[in-house]
């Protein structure tokens, strides 16, 4: 049995269950407690768990994220909300020099079981500084784990896996997904945990593989429907779910099956997730390709504000269909 939850509710349920399971789990961030979360993901949790477990911080990203990393070294399991992942820049030193490196530098003496979560996306007309999509950036730092759930079930399962993980895990959510709904397994039927590093075939197909993560999965699924209905093209949609660890086997399996690939990636083309996946495909499955790997990314410029145009800067079903048709 499963129920229909929003992505937001699924995340909240995952957080709530982990708060109940492990007394060392703490949620922290700007407006997460009394204000109920800037995006209402943490709504009600302060009331339920109180000041000790749900903590409002000042607008001091470097300070409170560094604090979370320090606390995690001592065995606290902080889940830090970044109001937007775009604000990683303020805490970048803590995120990449401390969280990513301390285990390595200490020869494995110190672990950092911290989770950083919050929305990382474009598409809400908030302009360049608020629309960074940095999963590819953080995946480039060994020591960090990065995931980007596309559905409510994956959001719940991945946040739970992230909290239990003994390494720093960065969960890239999406404001435009928070309100979307989907089936989520009932807690009565057992613990729903989605392991990090396991991709998921969201739609079976035979003619072409659309490989995506995060909100791009939704666009890829919509494009696949159009391709089937209007062009008789059967597209498989592979949802990466985790960026690092990356499920290379699943990527290669779908390429070997369909022999054609379009990568859909909301991050930028230069050095983004799709750049990495394309490289892996040509290194390990070149002989299976019937056409060059193609990509649909965010147009290579800082995010434009204008509501009239921003959606065309991002991947969308129309752009994906066009790209697939151009490969015939």
């Amino acid at each position, binding site marked *: 049995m499963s129920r229909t939850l929003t992505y937001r509710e699924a995340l909240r349920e995952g957080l709530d269950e982990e708060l109940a399971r492990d007394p060392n789990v703490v949620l922290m961030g*700007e*407006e997460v407690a*009394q*204000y109920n979360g*800037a995006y209402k993901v943490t709504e009600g949790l302060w009331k339920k768990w109180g000041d000790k477990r749900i903590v*409002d911080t*000042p*607008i*001091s*990203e*470097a*300070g409170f994220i560094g604090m979370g990393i320090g606390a995690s070294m001592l065995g606290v399991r902080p889940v830090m909300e970044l109001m937007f992942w*775009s*604000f990683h*820049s*303020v805490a970048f030193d803590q995120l990449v020099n401390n969280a990513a490196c301390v285990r390595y530098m200490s020869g494995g003496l110190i672990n950092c079981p911290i989770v950083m979560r919050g929305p990382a996306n474009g598409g*809400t*007309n*908030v*302009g*360049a*500084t*608020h629309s960074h999509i940095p999963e590819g950036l953080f995946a480039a730092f060994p020591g960090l784990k990065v995931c980007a759930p596309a559905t409510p079930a994956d959001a719940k399962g991945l946040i739970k896996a992230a909290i239990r993980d003994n390494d720093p895990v960065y969960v890239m959510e999406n404001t435009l997904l928070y309100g979307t709904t989907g089936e989520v397994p009932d807690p009565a039927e057992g613990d729903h945990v989605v392991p990090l590093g396991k991709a998921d075939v969201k739609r079976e197909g035979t003619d072409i593989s659309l490989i995506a993560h995060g909100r791009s999965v939704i666009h890829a699924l919509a494009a696949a429907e159009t391709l089937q209905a209007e062009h008789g093209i059967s597209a498989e949609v592979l949802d990466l779910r985790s960026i690092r660890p990356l499920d290379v086997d699943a990527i290669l399996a779908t390429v070997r099956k369909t022999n054609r690939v379009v990568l859909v990636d909301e991050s*930028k*083309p*230069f050095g983004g997730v799709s750049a990495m996946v394309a490289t892996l495909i040509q290194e390990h499955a070149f002989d299976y390709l019937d056409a060059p790997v*193609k*990509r*649909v*990314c965010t*147009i*290579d*410029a*800082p995010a*434009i*504000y*204008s*509501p*009239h*145009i*921003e959606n*065309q*800067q991002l991947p969308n079903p129309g752009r994906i269909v066009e*790209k697939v048709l151009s490969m015939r």
Partner: protein
Amino acid sequence: MSTAQLDTPRLDFAGSPINRDLTPDQKIDLFRQMVRIRRFEQTALKYYNAGKMGGFLHLYIGQEAVAVGTISLKLENDHFITAYRDHGHALSVGMGMNECMAEMYGKQTGCSKGKGGSMHFFAPDKGYWGGHGIVGGQTPLGLGLAYGLKYLEKEGCCLCYLGDGAVNQGAFHESLNIAALFNLPVIYVIENNGYSMGTSQKRSSSYRGCLAQRAEGYDMEWDVIDGSDIYEVRAKTHIAMERARKEQKPAILEISTYRYYGHSVADANAKKYRTPEEIENYKQNHDPITLFRRRLVAEGIFTEEQADQISKEAADEAAASAKFAEESPAPTVADIMTDVYWESDNNTEASKTGWHFFND
């Protein structure tokens, strides 16, 4: 500063050097500028709610005397920079309602061609270095503008505005240290409206007495100002600006003020973290426009009718700007790729090969 402090009787700054020589026209102009900001934003709110704009809308309503009072002191080489709550400063430096409204509509005729939106108004030709989105991120930039002035040997200063929430960012503290260490003519204006989103100043800042007092740790001058009194804003800011211009001394000014609306329109229900009585008290007793209007009427500078007329003209101007914005063209997909690199907008070899971009 708490409401209680605000409610105690305060000094009258009408007679201070910078205010006593104001002509009636100049006084009316100060009033008009505050009213223009309010009408502009009320109009923006109306069309935002009608779905004409995207993203955030951070209203400045209630805080008008801060921008108008401080920016009215501008001399040729003075500069201004602020955060995302930037409409008031933009209009005060002389940006037009049309270009500002069109920016919010995301149109080509906007001051940033629809690329920046409500949080990113700029007019460097007017000494206005804009609206910035990362809390505290503008504070080192303000430092840099001051450094530039000093380096280029120009007598001027930079006013860098920030909120009471932004004072807790590391970048601000680093800026204060460098400002004092290098003797740079930067003045940090903390617009203390009591809240950063839903978090009150008391819940976000560890402080003794007031936020500006942190200046002492950096051997810097500071002052506290009642932001509902435009004369006080001008009088005290003028002292700091003159000191900055002449002696290149930085300062922190904490101006107590209040925003009537939520942090942004997304949090329209600002009453969740503030009592209706608190909001009403500010509107009734500390509104900078009402107080100044009352004063000018009492002084015989204008009549109630004339004040109403000024308000109406501002509302008409704002309505016209919405019409202008509505009728302006939207950017196109090709516009996404302009303004990224200098070469791509200027006819150079590099722009012809297109090697800057990595689109398929």
